[in-house]
């Protein structure tokens, strides 16, 4: 077993939290993990990525080779497309439909969705809206993680335990909010058939 996940987004969108949950869950399942991340200048509103590699054998490279990602999980649709060269031929694309428009030449949204839909293995969900319904747009990342859980080799239980471990130092309320977001995301992915942008 060897699973490669690229997590992408814009600095400050919570991609490292998603990575931390995946790492913790994998380590709890006694798997090998490597996870590279971006610190420093790029974090200032720039494009950021994290490479998460989970395996039952030792992982060597901290970076995922191009063409070897089983999943690209993006908190932003254009950032998803930026990482297309990493996608494995039968890999999955998963993204929040909400764009983060902090640049002047951001592409037309329908063009982005059209490009993503060229790949049959895709899931586009409005994670931000679901998070807002829960009262905190920050948990959009956990909605996406819940959606990703349907595609991962990690058990739902260990992912949830990892969420508890990570957020318990904040409060039980925060834990529950994140778990709720996870559940919603999971259901959205299970019921996903087609994303319609109007």
């Amino acid at each position: 077993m060897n699973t490669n996940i690229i997590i992408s987004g814009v600095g400050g969108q919570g991609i490292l939290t998603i990575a931390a949950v995946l790492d913790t869950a994998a380590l709890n399942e006694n798997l090998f993990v490597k996870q590279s991340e971006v610190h420093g200048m790029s974090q200032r509103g720039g494009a950021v990525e994290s490479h998460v590699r989970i395996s039952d054998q030792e992982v060597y490279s901290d970076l995922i080779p191009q063409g070897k990602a089983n999943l690209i999980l993006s908190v932003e649709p254009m950032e998803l497309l930026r990482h297309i060269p990493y996608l494995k031929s039968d890999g999955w694309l998963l993204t929040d439909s909400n764009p983060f428009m902090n640049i002047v030449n951001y592409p037309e949204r329908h063009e982005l969705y059209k490009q993503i839909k060229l790949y049959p293995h895709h899931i586009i969900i409005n994670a931000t809206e679901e998070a807002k319904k829960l009262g905190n747009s920050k948990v959009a990342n956990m909605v996406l993680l819940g959606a990703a859980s349907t595609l991962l080799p990690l058990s739902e239980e260990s992912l949830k335990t990892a969420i508890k471990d990570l957020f318990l130092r904040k409060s039980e309320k925060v834990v529950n909010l994140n778990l709720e977001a996870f559940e919603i995301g999971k259901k959205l992915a299970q019921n996903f058939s087609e994303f319609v942008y109007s």
Partner: protein
Amino acid sequence: MKKLVLGNEALAQGAIDAGISGVYAYPGTPSTEITEYIQRSKTAKSLGIHSTWSVNEKTAMEAALGMSYTGKRSMVVMKHVGLNVASDVFMNMAVSGINGGMIVVVADDPSMHSSQNEQDSRFYGKFAMIPILEPSNQQDAYNVMHYAFDLSEELKLPILVRMVTRLSHSRAGVIFKERRTQNGIQLPVDTTQFALIPAYAKKQFEKLVSKKSLLIESSEKSTYNKLCLSKKDRSLGIITSGIAYNYVMENIDENKDFFSILKISQYPLPKEKIKEIYKHCDKILVVEEGYPLIEEVLHNYFDENDKIKGKLTGDLPLTGELNPNTVGKAAGFFQENTKNIPDIVSGRPPQLCEGCGHTDLFNAINELIPEIGNKKVFGDIGCYALGALPPLNTINTLIDMGASITMAKGAADAGLENVIAIIGDSTFTHSGMTGLLDAVYENTPITVIISDNSAVAMTGAQDSTAVGRLKSICLGIGVPPEHVKTIVPLKKNHSANVDIIRKELEYKNVSVIIAQRPCVRLSRDKKEEIKQKIAALN
């Protein structure tokens, strides 16, 4: 049990467990988390391990050497370009040698993710003639510290540990070992070792040069330098080091029996091991992150240029970091056909945060540019360097820590008028103060704007030694009190700020404007703490 840590954190825990009494550092990507980890560590706190930030890398390294002088173990940490700042003490302490074990950790940034060059610190280690250790993975980064401190005390030399961005900022599960107790104070047997007047320095330098064979011998028998010769296939041998080893293994994992591999993690290079793999194989591929150091040495050893492949032959790129694909291609492995990034995807460069005080300052300066003329703003290292990018385009230069003031001075000396230097608060105390004295000493007509956000913001808002001290430093250096102005860069102060900057530019001598507004990323508590500190010091 395995703990999930960054390469930097593994190294930091390794240093704590190897019995350091202090870490000295100035923040710099990708090295920052090493010191931050020790600052946060409860164990380090309970053991009284020093971990407060230093003003710059040179002061940090000297302090670490002072701690080593007492017999205790010390560590100094910096990014690659920080070693340029500390190179004076670095070169000389190789000659003096150390007392308590001392490690210099330098994190290189190939691909310049957050830097202005790709310099390879291994060349500094070679230049100083000291051993270099180059871990490949997170467990290595932890283990190597125990070994490095023992080696340092055995050889009586500082040891350079080279990290790179991809190891510093990658997490994995690491197993920690038992902690060694700290050394007590035990002053050097003969202090003349540290008194480098020519008579003693000559003796020490001879000692250093004569250690070369000892150092090579240590590399030959080091378990960090591993040679595996393939009996099945002699066509290709790979010599690789540090993080590059991972990219090699990623490609050959299932076929590893068919390749001879020499993994280097300790320098100076083990010549015998290199000769062995060279003789055993038809071709040699050298895979190393950074400049072609090993490859050049190989060309010196052997006179058959067509047998050695690597960066010098164009098989691997000379710029940018390596990755599993470039390495796989060089070793002759099939690479997956991949889809290109769709054309509609636009670049998303980093930018100043919403509400950042630097932006308001740049807007004020930009308004003056039609009056004072283009290309007269000298910049420096920090978040505000993003002012060199559109849409602001305020800053024209960015070279090294402190160069804004001194380059502005040189330009003014050449006759350029209305010259502005922009420098951050922490960069100013790091390397700007001395340049300001140059300008004051010669009454050079420049206006220095210290964009003071009261933090080392770019690297994650660490404490700045400048907080509350900028005005008194400038006055102390000799800038006249009526030309040390403080402004608050806010939209509502825009026209008043433009007027103040214009007025100081009209003053044909050194003036300083402190543009003071805390970094927007600081917490409310931190901002309050800074406010009180500034009030207390003024």
